[in-house]
């Protein structure tokens, strides 16, 4: 089988691996790079469970080919906690009961992080739009929306 080299930064760490040609970024992350935080929920671009950030942009890793990420900077939910200290989004989800089965959570967090990176004080509508590509089937969206707003608040308090 044809294998090709890919190099990128994953959560700040330089990674260089051989992957099978044509595999998705999702597959490469999960099965070659050992980062299983992005999930395969539909592999059709519909559920958002595989959502990661590539060069600052939100992307669906299930529809992105690993080879097209050469040299990119990739962020996943596995890289958010800083030396064991949860990111405000992670903290707010834990405290606010905003995860049940947890399968949508890593993708949901990356969608919300992209929002907060660009819009530190989002409105409720901003949050709804930001996670509109991510499906949750357990808890409903209200606790998730609330958690993102709570995280934004705790961020701005810190900044203030």
């Amino acid at each position, binding site marked *: 089988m044809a294998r090709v080299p890919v190099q990128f930064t994953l959560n700040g760490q330089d990674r260089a691996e051989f992957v099978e040609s044509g595999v998705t970024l999702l597959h490469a992350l999960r099965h070659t790079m050992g980062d299983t935080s992005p999930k*395969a929920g539909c592999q059709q671009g519909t559920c958002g469970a595989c959502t990661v950030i590539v060069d600052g942009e939100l992307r669906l890793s299930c529809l992105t080919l690993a080879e097209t990420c050469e040299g990119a900077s990739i962020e996943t939910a596995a890289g958010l906690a800083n030396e064991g200290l949860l990111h405000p989004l992670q903290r707010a989800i*834990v405290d606010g009961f905003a995860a049940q089965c947890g399968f949508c959570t890593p993708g949901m967090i990356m969608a919300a992080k992209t929002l907060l990176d660009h819009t530190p004080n989002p409105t409720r509508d901003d949050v709804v739009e930001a996670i509109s590509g991510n499906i949750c089937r357990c808890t409903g969206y209200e606790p998730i929306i609330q958690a993102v707003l709570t995280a934004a608040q705790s961020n701005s308090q810190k900044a203030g």
Partner: protein
Amino acid sequence: MEIRKDYFSDERNDDLHEIGHSRTRSDTPGHVTGKTAYFADRTFPGLLHLKMVRSPHHHANIRSIDVSEAEKHPGVVRVLTARDVPHNLYTILILIQVGPEDETVLADKKVSWKGEAVVAVLATSERAAQEGAAKVKVDYEVLPAVFDMEEALKPDAPLVNEHHPGNHYLYDSGDHRKVRFGDVEAGFAKADHILEQTYNSSPIEQAPLETTGCIVTPDGNDRFTCYTDTQAMFFTLDNASIILQMPGHKLHMVGGTVGGGFGGKVDVIVEPIAILAAKLTGRPVSFIYSREEEMQISSPRAAERIVIKDGVMNDGRLVARKVTGYTDAGAYSRHSPYGAQKGTAHYPGPYTIENVWIDTYCVYTNRTPSSAMRGFGVTIADFALEVQMDKLARLIGMDPLEFRFINAYRDGDMKAHRQPTEGAALIECMQEASRVADWPVADRFYEMSSRSREA
């Protein structure tokens, strides 16, 4: 959150330390950091991928199966057909004596629904398994199919499943489950009004975000570890043991972390064939549904048809209820005989009615087999019952909430299926709901209690 401790306060000590307090779920820190290990988060060297070849027809005889091209395809390691399965006939609830076994793991003579599993292809990559599956040739003789429950019960309907003559489940009570209480015809005769309505529901897919699947590793010594997202670990263990004719101690089931189930992962579908594949190849095997398979192949909630005929008095008393319920099992039983039976006991609802007649049928059609989903056998019944209650209230010009107070069951009432009511709290729930929703009812309803019946 407000906790109303005044209701039933004499029945318990006021020493609740957890209720009303927010507690961190023990699993959430793993969820937010991506560390929670779902079954598919494991990678094993030499992993094989299983792709199922499925029936494109709703109902067909299998004339022949040719796997020779598939076996030659690069990457394909093994192709499984019905003759590889040690005991190729099962039904999940055989464990509690709800038979007969009525479903094959891999079909050999006939397929009875579009999507039924026929041939399993094992290959070194998902892609190779897909390519191999595309090369399997199955010759079908297409048969007439039936999709409507009442059509299926007609004498000349196509026979969906040879184990269920007449296309219905055969209970020990006959072709349907029944409840008989009082004299329903006498009740209708004295009623001021009679209302008969039919309610239909479609199948509903549970749609968990994580699809159904498992990964099996051979551990040596003829033992196997099965990492699975089943919601029913012991159903899976015991049914796999029966299908594979393998003692349970050879099967090590690992699970409990499920990316959403909602009843959709209570069937035993992927594990037996994946364990068999691991046994026959000696390699780890992964069998994970695609999203399309999850939506089209995994069992949904059954379609139901519910005919409710009620007799009601002008003063609001329900005096007679007759219900005929149909549950669409699809082509195989799975959990549907049980679901249909649950409905039988449930159709009076949380109301005390002196004359009740209930018949429920579990019907076989050429649709996707249905099974468990959140309150199956009850949820659709409740929809129908409560819509019916609103219609009855409207019919006699009564407030719908007051109508329910009048008919609410109380402690000590005998239910139609001969279970005495105990611990009823419907009256109190409705009293509180009336206050919170600002939907006032007459004073006498606020004085009612579930624990006694006023003179």
